[in-house]
């Protein structure tokens, strides 16, 4: 039954794509001709293009930001400055010069649909890290490049972000995760040693959760915590399954970024007889029972990520 539903959904989706492709609509804004080469001898090399001097005659407030940015480096043959300058991104300016009040006379990114904006940017930004943008989590939510980046009025020191820092920018939407990095147990983001992009690739990734490295959550984690890569002789299945079974990488109030205190976290899976299934209450605290005070279960089961010891079946060696 489930296979039939899946097949039906796929068939309907493909059918829409095929039918629509048979009668495509013209795109609102054509992508710029990326292969066009600027001819210094001809200030108006292609009909409709006016040149940057004409643009800054009215828009002088953006000239400096453009020249200071990677887009303004004419020695880079891929940069807009080496092509049609302002008009590489904004399109030919002749109609705009004739009547600036018409919104469609030139590409105004603040007036364009998100995916139209992205199509313009991706016409040049074709390589890593943008190769996996289409179909990525941010693309599915209709984010555009200009949702996070500003070419002319950036606030950050690098990457032309619309906020002073990456964390500030990501916190615009990811409120819960941004709040967690301030918790008492956290990775060094607020200390400036890491950023959101230390783990995530916002432009798209082959990994889940837009993780930057690897192809599964664990591969991303062991890129820094390589000691836990293994494989080990004795594996802790919950950890090998996924690091976030037990840890919250964004921040926690529990030691070692655990999602709950010990022994309660372990008792979510270990219900067996004797000590795993015992209630550890305040009397246990007063008696300094090692199964709850200090490191809890990990006082003894220290090799909780896996053991390479022949007697390491229960992760105590």
């Amino acid at each position, binding site marked *: 039954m489930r296979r039939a539903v899946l097949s039906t959904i796929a068939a309907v989706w493909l059918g829409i794509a095929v039918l629509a*492709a048979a009668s495509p609509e013209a795109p609102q804004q054509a992508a710029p001709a990326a292969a066009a080469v600027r001819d210094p001898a001809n200030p108006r090399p292609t009909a409709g293009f006016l040149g940057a001097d004409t643009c800054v005659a009215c828009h002088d407030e953006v000239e400096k930001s453009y020249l200071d940015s990677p887009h303004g480096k004419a020695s880079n043959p891929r940069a807009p400055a080496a092509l049609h300058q302002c008009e590489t991104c904004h399109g030919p300016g002749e109609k705009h010069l004739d009547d600036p009040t018409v919104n469609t006379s030139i590409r105004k990114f603040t*007036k364009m649909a998100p995916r139209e904006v992205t199509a313009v940017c991706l016409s040049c930004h074709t390589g890593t890290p943008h190769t996996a943008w289409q179909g990525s989590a941010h693309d599915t939510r209709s984010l555009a490049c200009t949702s996070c980046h500003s070419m002319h009025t950036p606030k950050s020191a*690098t990457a032309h972000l619309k906020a002073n820092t990456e964390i500030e920018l990501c916190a615009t939407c990811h409120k819960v995760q941004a709040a967690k990095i*301030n918790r008492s147990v956290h990775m060094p983001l607020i200390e400036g040693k890491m950023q959101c992009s230390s783990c995530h690739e916002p432009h798209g990734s082959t990994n889940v959760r837009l993780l930057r490295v690897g192809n599964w959550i664990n591969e991303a984690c062991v890129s820094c915590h390589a000691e836990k890569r293994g494989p080990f002789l004795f594996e802790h299945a919950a950890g090998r399954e996924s690091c976030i079974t037990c840890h919250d990488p964004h921040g926690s*109030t529990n030691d070692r970024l655990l999602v709950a205190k010990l022994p309660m976290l372990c008792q979510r899976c270990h219900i067996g007889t004797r000590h795993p299934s015992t209630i550890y209450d305040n009397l246990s605290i007063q008696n*300094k029972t090692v199964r709850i005070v200090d*490191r809890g279960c990990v006082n003894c089961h220290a090799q909780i990520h896996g053991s390479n010891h022949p007697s390491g*079946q229960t992760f105590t060696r």
Partner: protein
Amino acid sequence: MRTRICLPLVLSMLAMAHVAAAQQPTPAPPAAAATTAAAAAPLAGEADFGGHASSISGDAARFQKYRDLRNGPTLDRARYQKSRERWEFNAALEHAGYRDQRYTAGFNQYGKLKASFQWDQIPFFYSTDTRTPFTSPSAGVFRLADAFQTAVQSASATTAIYAADVRRFDLRSQRNIADARLDYRATRTLDLRVSFTSTGRTGAQPWGASFGQSNAVELAAPIDRRNNDMNATAEWSNDRAMARLAYDGSWFTNHVDRLIFDNPLRATDAVGLPSQGQQAQWPDSTAHTVSAAGSLALPARTRAFGYVSVGSWLQNDALLPFTINTAIAPLLLSRPTAEADARIVAMNYRLTSRPMTKLWLNGQFKSYNYDNRTPRFLEAQYVGLDSSLVTSATGGSEPFGYVRHFVDLDASYSPLTFAAVRLGYGREHDDRTFRHFEATTEHTVRASLDSTGLSWGSMRLQYEHGERTGQGLDEEVFSDIGEQVSLRQFDISDRRRDRLMALVQVVPIAPLGFSASAGVGQEHRPGAAFGLQDNDLRTFSVGVDATRKDALVLGTEYSFEHYATLQHSRQANPGPQFDDPTRDWSTDMNENVHTVTSSLDLPHVARRTAARLAYDYVHANARYVYLLPSNTTLAPPQPLAPVRNTMQRATADVRYSLSRQVGIGAAYWYDSYDAQDFARSPGTLDSPFFPALINLMYLNRPYRAHTASARLIYMW
């Protein structure tokens, strides 16, 4: 065994400081107030010369944690940039001479070459007041005074005798990272990239070791590891197509492969009573991955993307003996080395199409195969805790592996330019070995409404419903290890999940913005009589941003998070108790977290003066409550104290420009941390020595800190 950093590679690389420049100054020290430099020829460099001093009461280590805030002079936030028409060079340093210093350099020949190098040190300061009676004659070996061991063994003394040997020390570790990257644009469409990262970690960390549930010790386990990572990529791309080939290699080396630790209760070996224990530490390992990716633009604004990677994780360390207890006859190892080998194959295929302007379609298939080829390490018996022979419940190791398949289909329709409605379906199917379900399948449907790009604000709304079911239940997995067969391990159990998230941002007038968000999430695990049952989440936040050009920038946000979980268990010994429902109990956990972040920038608070004020506050309160059924035969548990912690930071920074090139600045910040933790508070661990535990006294202790800094800012 030490691997040298590739100095020739380092010396040959200079490039733009992407990473360092992206690391904005953080509260330690506070971000400097904005400069009021007049528009003139750009300045090439900047450096802050100054000093800071802190007055700390309480846990000075926790206050510093990832930072080095020792009193003293500072050279900080130094930047240098030189650019010409065709190239640019950047260099930067942060907190020179301190344990958290960072140096970067970068060179960018526009459109041709980018090279960068970074040296970054990340300390971790655990404790200034750690105590231990153990001495370490060599790395990884922990010894107690023989005379004291003998006295305790003969019952003429208790473990309190070791107090005479206690020494205090700082417990810290350090991560040093050298990262070098080169990006060469061979042609207009061909990029060649190579990177090398060497991470060394040294110091010590708290580590548990045990001789049984009544005899555990906490050690300052030494850390001496290095991981070297390398990437080489060739990528060809234009606006129509992309092809990429990459290799990733990783080599992990641990110079402390075992811990040997004395037993505080025994001086001589006996069966069931070892005088020392031996624990394996992280084994050396390598990982190699080759990947290929490609994409192609197709008609109707369609793009196909494909990615395949093949990798292997290898580990073949020599195995330690079953025990070092000389009173136990040695057991033969079924093989001398680990022979651990996992082959990983990952695939990702995507087809994205926008056949009509308003319609967007996306289909994705992803596969991840963790094929654990490690041969089973067969053992009928092993030595538990270096004490005595134990019959293996499983007959040996269980080389756990899995295959995951993901299918995602999404369709988005934009009835208006800045609005999109999305429907999506996802299916994840996992096959596993050695777990109680042979396979699990989760179906997820999702719907979202996004309105972005409007001048007055944006709105996001998403609802997601998922249902996971397991197949191939193997109850023997539980009965073999003495677990209840109606237990379901929560990470793979049947699960029903609903999540609703909403976010609204409104900008009624340009300088003023409001935001609000709310989220609700519920997880329920039907069919699990034991284990985690429910996991619920509620969040909301409100925020205000105000900007008055060249006058002030204000941002403040409050967020609230509520988490609740419910889990079931049964307190029982083997025998009739195991099947007695009157011995059931539950844990009801509730946690509330309040977070406030706010900042105020005043770039022209007075003539030539800029100021920045900031305040951050986090308060978390969690309760673990035990619940018993009405027919219980268990004694009522004594309630646990709540787990609370509160962090506050207030900062003030003022900067005065004496001239275009010289300025002075001063900053003050106040930090406080309060914690109440039933497991690790000073009230609980008030001594290194308990009958069942010798601990390091690494605690959750509060602190109050006042820090002042002054600096001379020089720009050139």
